[in-house]
């Protein structure tokens, strides 16, 4: 087990429940009190709820007041899933049928009917098209009524020039945003997956208009996501996704060999190495010991083992943020920025974000979603 740092002791309970829902037998009300809140913060309450509720023999061990929160989270996840289906249906009507479009992450897990999609709260809709189809897809969506969110000129330039997606699109009145990507990492970042391979191996699903990534690419994409999006606190969920994808797609020795070979081809060994490290340590994912993946230098691993738990794991929300967590979040953010942008840009991006921080601090945040 990698030390969880200053995380709440109930973090162990949450991880144990995610690894094996039979851990409910070891939970008392004080543990549930914090674990429910940690799970909600990590956007994992719906997942946890589904895993417990789908096993009748566990229900008797869960107090009624806790079951209420689990049922509530299940209802909320079902509603978000419904919204996602509606948005996908609307997108399918708007996009020219001959245009190959893949869905990523939550929508892909849902369309594949994977176990890990059950109870998972989808954020927004992530679509991926070939770079050469980007203009076509954008035009189709805009002429069907989707609009870019209002953003300032800097942010728009950032998105268009340096990011791997367009600014988010939304159909007026629709609750979900649509992100249009042309690869799975920022184009200027240090990570350079083989986009041609991604596109060549897109999979069709029976009866579905949308394509999905090759199963192994889905794992690699989730691993990339783990280190590349700015909301570091959401990343426990990325690990849970990776764990679920491995359980769904990777079974034999041969599967593991193919996965690592594919990571090498995409130059994504490092993200995969770390993802597997924390999946094994925290979620008891059955990762073989002897994978042919080059480990990072020991000093870097040590640093990572310090930073990662501190900025990835949720905390009991009304307790003050410790200094080490704040420091770790800074380091984590820096690392994420460093991976994402060429060095010259990094300064501009930080300066800009630093300035914006002085202005916009919204008072209204809805943490319940």
């Amino acid at each position, binding site marked *: 087990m990698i030390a969880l740092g200053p995380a709440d002791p109930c973090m162990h309970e949450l991880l144990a429940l995610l690894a094996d829902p039979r851990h409910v037998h070891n939970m008392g009300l004080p543990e549930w*009190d914090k674990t429910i809140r940690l799970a909600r913060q990590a956007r994992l309450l719906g997942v946890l709820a589904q895993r417990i509720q789908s096993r009748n023999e566990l229900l008797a061990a869960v107090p009624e007041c806790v079951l209420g929160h689990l049922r509530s989270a299940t209802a*909320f996840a079902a509603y978000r899933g419904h919204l996602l289906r509606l948005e996908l249906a609307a997108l399918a009507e708007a996009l020219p049928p001959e245009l190959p479009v893949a869905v990523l992450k939550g929508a892909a897990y849902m369309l594949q009917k994977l176990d890990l999609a059950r109870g998972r709260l989808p954020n927004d809709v992530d679509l991926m098209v070939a770079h050469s189809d980007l203009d076509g897809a954008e035009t189709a969506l805009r002429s069907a009524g989707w609009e870019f969110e209002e953003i300032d000129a800097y942010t728009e330039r950032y998105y268009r020039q340096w990011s791997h997606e367009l600014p988010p699109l939304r159909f007026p009145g629709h609750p979900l945003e649509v992100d249009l990507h042309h690869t799975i990492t920022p184009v200027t970042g240090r990570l350079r997956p083989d986009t041609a391979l991604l596109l060549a191996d897109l999979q069709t699903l029976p009866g579905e208009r949308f394509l999905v990534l090759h199963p192994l690419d889905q794992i690699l994409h989730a691993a990339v996501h783990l280190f590349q999006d700015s909301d570091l606190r959401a990343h426990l969920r990325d690990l849970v996704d990776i764990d679920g994808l491995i359980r769904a797609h990777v079974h034999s020795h041969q599967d593991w060999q193919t996965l690592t070979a594919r990571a090498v081809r995409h130059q994504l060994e490092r993200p995969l190495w770390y993802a597997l490290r924390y999946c094994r340590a925290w979620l008891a994912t059955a990762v073989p010991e002897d994978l042919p993946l080059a480990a990072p230098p020991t000093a870097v691993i040590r640093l990572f083992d310090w930073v990662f738990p501190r900025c990835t794991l949720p905390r009991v929300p009304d307790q003050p943020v410790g200094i080490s967590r704040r420091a770790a979040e800074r380091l984590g953010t820096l690392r994420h920025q460093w991976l994402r942008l060429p060095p010259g840009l990094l300064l501009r991006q930080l300066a800009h974000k630093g300035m914006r921080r002085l202005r916009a601090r919204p008072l209204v945040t809805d*943490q319940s979603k």
Partner: protein
Amino acid sequence: MTSQQVQHSLPSQQSAQSEHSQPPRIRDLPLALLARRFSTGSVALDYGAAMVRVRSHLGAFVRDFQQVYGAFTLADDAPFADFHTEVCGGQGLRAFLRPQSRFLIDGIQPFDPFPKAQALPHFEWGVNWCFAQRFNQHVLLHAGALALADRAVIMAAPPGAGKSTLTAAMMLRGFRMLSDEFGVLCPRTGRLWPMLKPVALKNRAVDVIRDFADEAILGPLYKGTRKGDVAHLAPLAASVDARQRPARPCLLLFPSFRDGAALSIRRLPGEEAFARVAFNSFNYALVGQIAFDAVANVAEACPAFALEYSRLDEAIESLRTMLLESPAVATTA
């Protein structure tokens, strides 16, 4: 303690509240002790459907709280709370320039601060918000709910129809109040859970209720809130003591107050009653099919009436008869 009670509540809380060791009511606690409990974060409040932990250092809040939650008890060392909230003062320089109260749930401030003097209405609003956002295991009807023994009437009406006034008056005439704003319908049992909170009375209703019954205990009058002048009616002990007892919906009522109106009662068709209940719910759309089935069960089992009135006592007596004589039959387990 009956076996049914155990089934519906937290065992450890229940034992803390059993007849043998009835904790003191909040109105009987010394204010200083109550303030200390609030500042150490050890106040857990059992509303019936939900347990809410509250922390606060604001003396004015604690004083107002004691008035309108007087009949409640504090759950000692409740091991589990549904919501973890805090009512605190403003931050930084602003705290001196314009004293404010902030409401936090899980450390997050979901909406703008209120003036400090309005900390209690702010808290009440905040708890409603938590409940409406996060309690989707129930269908949350926008309705008052009252019961005689365990037979409940659900009263739904648009704002301004006098729903809160009628709810308050019914409690003061011996009905058990479950809630004045949230009809908490459990889709699994078909029963209504109490979500027992002080009744927020607005403008003219404050004096109407003050003059209506000697037992009425009203908190301070908050002038010029977002909803006008507001005062809270404290729930009576009989309702508070039964807040762990769900009731069976037996009657749907859609009241409207009109000055000088003679009492009139009109039977409503089932599909119209369904529509009025469902589409006034806080989370009907979100809960989807489960909510549809739950509301359909209620609309099927309960006769529904529109009631127009101007004299409270006359309306209440006819309601009492209707509820006691309602032929409603339970359609769910």
